[in-house]
């Protein structure tokens, strides 16, 4: 068993938060399903990767899109009108960190008080929590492979926490 943990920072060019109104969530879902060529949007607490876009349902009617593509927000704004949902461009709000390796779950559970084991939180799951008082959105890409977004201004602190915590357990980072 290797205690090696791989970390890297993927650069997402677009992040869009979409919040529907109570009476328009179905319409919003249909528009997004069509846009993303999906038969169904992910359930709450799940995400899907489609057309180079991570589409995560954070809570009922609240969808977050992460993409390496540019100008995703203007595209979404064109197809979803203000009467249907609020579109918030947060492309610069967050930075993402990918953490993978057999011990990554153990490392993250040091800071996240949510059971990240496969039984409790299977792959393609998304959750919002905090690590060391830093708000995060965590996507489980596959077992022991995570994509975590923290607010940009907190990112240095978050990164320092990851490095420091890995040292505690003697995990090798690369």
């Amino acid at each position: 068993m290797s205690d090696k943990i791989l970390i890297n920072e993927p650069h997402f060019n677009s992040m869009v938060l979409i919040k529907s109104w109570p009476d328009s969530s179905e319409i919003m879902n249909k528009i997004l399903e069509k846009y993303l060529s999906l038969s169904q949007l992910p359930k709450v607490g799940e995400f899907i990767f489609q057309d180079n876009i991570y589409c995560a349902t954070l809570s009922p009617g609240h969808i977050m899109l992460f993409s390496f593509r540019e100008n995703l927000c203007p595209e979404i704004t064109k197809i979803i009108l203000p009467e249907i949902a609020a579109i918030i461009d947060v492309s610069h709000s967050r930075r993402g960190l990918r953490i993978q390796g057999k011990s990554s779950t153990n490392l993250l559970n040091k800071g996240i008080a949510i059971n990240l084991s496969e039984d409790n939180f299977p792959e393609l799951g998304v959750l919002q929590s905090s690590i060391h008082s830093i708000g995060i959105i965590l996507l489980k890409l596959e077992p022991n492979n995570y994509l975590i977004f923290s607010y940009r201004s907190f990112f240095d602190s978050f990164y320092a926490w990851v490095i420091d915590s890995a040292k505690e357990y003697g995990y090798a980072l690369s």
Partner: protein
Amino acid sequence: MSGSRLKHHGQFINYDKPIKFTFDGKEYHGFLGDTLASAMIANGKIILARSFKYHRPRGIFSAGPEEPNALVSVRSDGRLEPNSPATTIELYDGLDAYSQNAWPSLSFDIMSINQVFSPLLVAGFYYKTFMGTGQKFWHFCEHFIRRAAGMGKAGLEADPDRYEKSNIFSDVLIIGGGPAGLSAALQAASNGETITLVDENKHFGGSLYEEQGTIDGKNSSSWIEDTLKVLSEYDNVTMMTRTTVYGYFDDNTLGAVERVADHKEQPRKNEPRQRHLKIFAKHVIIATGSLERPIVFAGNDTPGVMLANAALRYANRYGVCVGDNVAIFTNNDDGYNTAHQLRNLGVNVTTVIDVRKKVDQTLITDNNIKYITGNVVTSARGGKALSVIKIAPYDMPTKTIGKEKKIKIDTLLISGGYTPTINLCSQTGTPAVFDNEIQSFIPGPPTRKWEACGAVVGNFTLEEIFIDNKIKNGNKKAIPFALTDIPSSNNSAKKFIDFQHDVSVTDLKIAYTEGFRSVEHLKRYTTLGMAADQGKTSNMNALAIMAELRGVTIPEAGTTRFRAPYKPVALGTLAGRSVGNNYRVIRRTPMHDWHLAHGADMIEAGIWYRPQVYKKNGETITDAYIREATAVRNSVGIVDVTSLGKIDVQGPDAAEFLNRIYANAFLKVPIGKARYGVMLREDGCMFDDGTSWRLSETQFLMTTTTANAANVLSEMERLLTLIWPKLKVHVSSISDQWAGMAVAGPNSRNTLEKVIKDIDFSEEGLPFMGVTDGTINAIPVKVSRLSFSGERAYEVFTATHHGITIWKNIIQAGADFNITPYGTEALGTLRIEKGHISGPELDGRTTMSDVGLGKMASSKKRYVGSVLKERIGLTDKMRKTMVGLISHDYQPLKAGSLVLEGSKNIGHLTSTTYSPALNKYIALALIQDGNTKIGNTVTAVFPLKNEKSSALVVDPHFYDKEGKRLYV
């Protein structure tokens, strides 16, 4: 009592690894595997501490975490840890331990004079002595009492070691790795569920090491070894030793402390000394075993009196003999088992004294032991080392003793039965129930997802625990003969119940006499069970005695509910890594590195780091901010305002929503315009202020103060969720989306015109409070013409990622105008000169009228706080209102100073600065009926430094009241 090493090799000892350690500076020797207590006994030292109140010499009493006496301090300097039971400290090379609560030395402690005054130092001493005597007398005495009382002292230096925190999730948590815990783990392991097995000791096995019987034909040591091997082969089983579960909280969440490196001189690099664990378990199995119960008799705290089971553990596990001439005083069969095992291990047990008249004759097997039944130990004597005990026949029905007889011994082992360790069960709220057979409380029916097994429910024998296994020759069950305190011919001798807090039978009787009947009152009045050991060895005896005093049964007397922590938890462990630089997270703006590279002194604003000043050529902070503020007034400056809270307010009802939360009107703010707004709390006081920019018919960009951003967002979400759920508005934090910089000064327009070509900066193109979009070198920016400084100024927002690029571009464009970056000090100076409010004025108690914004509040609409802002208390003419102060004597004014009119305190200073524009020291202040005091002279007093300044009360708008500078 004169301890020594036995020929028998202790099971836990590695004799190939001798260890040197010190106690009170003197070097001793032990072996790897020893505890400090076992090594000290082996070195012939049993007194490691003095008692809490009377400073009586106390010997090692137990062999585990229940130890009430032998509390010591270990390590030194920042690593000093006081009040550690010597019985649980694992020996390592270089260990330094120190006695506590004794001066000048452990053997000669002056404060032992307290014993002379012991008739005064009884239960309720403080109430009886100090109530009604006045505070002066108490304060006089407090100094001496605090020096005399107490346990170890905490170190004053910071602990250099690392403490960590982590979370553990488990389907099944098994607490206790003794026979019941191991058996439960074996059964559960094959189910595939995740199992976490924890034990507070270094070794799994618990009481099995002293078990004589066989399990499935194996002796106990072999069975432990085989069982651990089997469990270790399961991937779903995690086994943790040196881990104490100290608290059982709601929703099956438990707190535990893993002692990762306490058994080492120093932790390895990056290794924590201790790790705090939050354990989330679907099901908990509590197998915490039991603790041997003392017997209460006169002089029972004499060094040399020890729990019988402890002596057996020292002999069996550590190869240590506790004395040369040993007697055992028991009320149950287990005392005989202990006596025989000890003799087999080489300990000279000469006498067994049993309170019971009738004893199973099969227990009397050793011709070298004198068995005395129907007798009790009435007293033990010996000062610093036991030398003699008195025994006497005991008549249980009348509770009287016959003629006493002396026996010379150096060690008395006592065995009063076993008390189940129900602490964790009790913490869940489950009432304990009394088990008459074992004369103790056991857990009642679980109210949560836990179960208890083994000795904690009174199943003391292997036959009761391993119902499916073949047990042969197991130890007999300890069924105690009910005892309270034993009479003595020596009425002055103390009979201690709670050794750690020096609570005796006399204290209980006094409390009872004074009317304290409930166990809850008894506990608090006498402090019984409230010491660091949580009454592990005292509670049951105390309950029995109290029940007898009241003439009721023990269950009728009841028991208290145990509370966390089961064992003390070091503050460092609770703090974890939240110390020093890691105390809290830091937010950095995208220009952070630039600021540092240009000489900025950074200051915390909330958790943001902002430049305070940019020092040049040996400048002081004052020099720097004066230079920076002057530059803004004379030419142009730039300040990083990224830390401002930014909230996206979006939806068809966005304007309506803002109109309801701001005190001034927002319905008709045109697209492309910003408006300053003030929010009130529901009680009518000011909550926050800021500008909101209308970006479209349905979208606003709201700015808040740096410190209040999260509170404002939270309050807006609350209102939308609970108060106005039908409004179609969403609010989202976008503080991190935008980098912001304010360009201020008469040359601000000239500067921006050089770098932003696609914005018309004329009065018509971008009027005051106008908002528009543009680009700097093709990077999109949002520009708003706002001013906090009073000068013509613009706020430039850009996507965070581009923040540093835009910042540098503007700096470059302003070079011709000698653009000056400025920090929070100059920012404050400029706004104070203008009389603008900020955090010190928004102190949660002020109203809009107090700070001169009353006329802004709309009278034509309802908004949050609109009703209560009109209440009498907030409209009182004598309320403090904001004024300006100018120092008469050219002396700095201190924020927080009291404002005196004559000798009357009429208010306080909120913000102060040196004003380069006025060339004077100025301040904003809140003073009673301030508007009528313009022109008066007041005194600003700063009592902490005994400073006084005379000041003139003026209008708070010190500079350019008409606002002409906005259009320069």
